């Protein structure tokens, strides 16, 4: 399997996009909107021209600023799935899929369960159907690289869950070097082998989803992966413990060494919730009013003062969290990470 290399410098409106990627598998680019994620896809596809860099699939060079080489989009072996799908409104589903010159159109219509829609125009399709047509159209010409721009963002929550599973299978089945752009870390973690966090055109961290959660490079990456992010100032450090005074007044401990202004990172699943302070090894206790209780599948996310904890639905009802009032969040110093405060984080 050929490897996709993309080293780019691309001037955007308010900053330069700079990126170096190399993958034979699926990379997800995550970041806030306007971070330049989609521009990466456009540059790889040849729709935007970088000022410097090199884009190649294996030995097939598509762009090389040193050699003044830039192949037009139609000479690059890419399948690009646009965020709004960009299906040709005047062509039937079959003609859309066949547009790239595919020979086995019927096979793809079957594979993507759109055979019965073959003669329908895109205007009459649902969101999920449009996405399958867009994927079929991009893959039917057997591209060497797959580029997906926010593949799940145009779908409603119900469709999204199903499509995510389908997409996961699809990426495994085709096994192409894939760049996937999304603003949702959960989608990225579910679909990609590696996740790159982009902010203001710069790659903050590129690692497996597990590594991003375990050791985020900065507070922005931490909050993106779903962690609680609190701010504070380091007061003292002794006996391998750092004491941080939070901006909200509480004092908490961490085993990380740090000084000055810090971001305090705690994952919701590392926080224990009780109605009264518990006896135990956990050093950190934050008491506060229950501000919200949200069900996420079989779990419940409860916000206590400045932190969000994740507990099982059974615990939530045993503690009657829905009833409101005061609760206590407890977490260990070992599960509390201290990070330098990042710009934009």
């Amino acid at each position: 399997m050929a490897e996709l290399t993309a080293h780019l410098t691309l001037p955007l409106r308010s900053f330069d996009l700079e990126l170096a990627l190399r993958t034979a598998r699926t990379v997800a680019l995550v970041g806030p909107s306007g971070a330049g994620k989609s521009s990466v896809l456009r540059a790889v596809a040849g729709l935007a021209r970088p000022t410097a860099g090199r884009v190649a699939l294996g030995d097939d060079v598509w762009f090389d600023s040193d050699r003044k080489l830039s192949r037009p989009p139609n000479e690059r072996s890419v399948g690009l799935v646009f965020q709004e799908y960009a299906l040709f409104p005047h062509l039937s589903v079959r003609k859309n899929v066949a547009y790239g010159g595919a020979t086995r159109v019927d096979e793809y219509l079957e594979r993507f369960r759109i055979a019965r829609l073959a003669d329908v125009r895109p205007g009459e399709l649902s969101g999920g159907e449009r996405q399958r047509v867009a994927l079929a159209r991009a893959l039917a010409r057997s591209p060497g690289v797959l580029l997906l721009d926010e593949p799940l963002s145009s779908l409603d929550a119900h469709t999204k869950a199903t499509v995510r599973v389908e997409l996961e299978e699809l990426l495994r089945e085709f096994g192409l070097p894939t760049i996937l752009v999304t603003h949702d870390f959960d989608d990225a973690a579910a679909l990609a082998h590696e996740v790159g966090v982009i902010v203001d055109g710069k790659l903050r961290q590129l690692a497996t989803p597990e590594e991003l959660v375990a050791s985020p490079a900065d507070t922005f990456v931490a909050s993106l992966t779903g962690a609680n992010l609190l701010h504070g100032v380091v007061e003292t450090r002794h006996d391998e413990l750092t004491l941080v005074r939070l901006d909200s007044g509480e004092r908490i401990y961490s085993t990380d060494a740090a000084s000055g202004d810090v971001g305090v990172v705690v994952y919701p699943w590392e926080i224990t919730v009780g109605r009264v302070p518990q006896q135990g090894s956990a050093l950190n206790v934050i008491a506060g009013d229950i501000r919200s209780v949200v069900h996420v599948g079989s779990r419940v996310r409860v916000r206590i003062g400045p932190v969000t904890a994740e507990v099982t639905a059974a615990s939530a009802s045993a503690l009657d969290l829905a009833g409101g009032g005061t609760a206590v969040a407890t977490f260990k110093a070992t599960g509390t990470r201290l990070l330098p405060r990042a710009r934009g984080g």
Partner: protein
Amino acid sequence: MLTVAAVFAAAALSFAFLLLPIVALFTHQSLGELLGQLSNPVVVDALIVSAKTSAIAQAAILLFGTPTAYLIARHRFHGRAFVITLVELPLVLPPAVAGVGLLVAFGRFGLLGSTFEALGIDVAFNTAAVVLAITFVASPLYMRQAIASFEAVDPDLVAASRTLGAGPERTFFRVVLPLARAGLAAGAALSLARGLGEFGATIMFAGSFQGVTQTLPLAIYFEFDRDFEVAVTISALLVIVTGAILLSLKFTSLWQSSQPTSPSLYARSTSS
């Protein structure tokens, strides 16, 4: 109640005001007389000159105007607003000014006069002059509509076509043109109707020679003094032709509304 009645009265007056001159053109003489005038050589000659020059002018507008409009619609460049203004200028220019302008540019003693003479081309006061006058005056109506129609084609569709292996030409003919088609047809209909009615620039630049440069509007003007009934006949004829063009335009716009394209990412340059 009084205001409602006043509104209806105003509407009735407006309709009557617009309708009466049209009706009068057809009631001024009997239908037999009207049809009889159609074989008048002045009418026949003017009809042929108008049909011929309008057809050539329309072909030139489509052939040169379409790529120009596409270029303007697809690119953002310095001076774009100036270029669009230039393209639209003949729309607001007094026809007499257009006629004088054409004369001092392409006429025998004009800017390109000696060049044309050396090449053996003589454009003043012949059929070619009529074509130039019509093209100059009628092209903005097509251009405005064509630029807007091309801009309305979602740039992502063009990009999608390119990433699916289609070059610029194939993309234009298989994606852009089919999606802009209804808008282009509407623009063509409007410029055709405007070209058929062209008077001021033609009479100044091409003169009025029966069978050579005398178009239908020019024939009306000259028959006005000679044989008023003929002037009325030609007028009625032009009402029917331009009315039919306008009616077909309504049908193309109905057809267009059933073929939606994604909205443009860019602001329309030609919305006023």
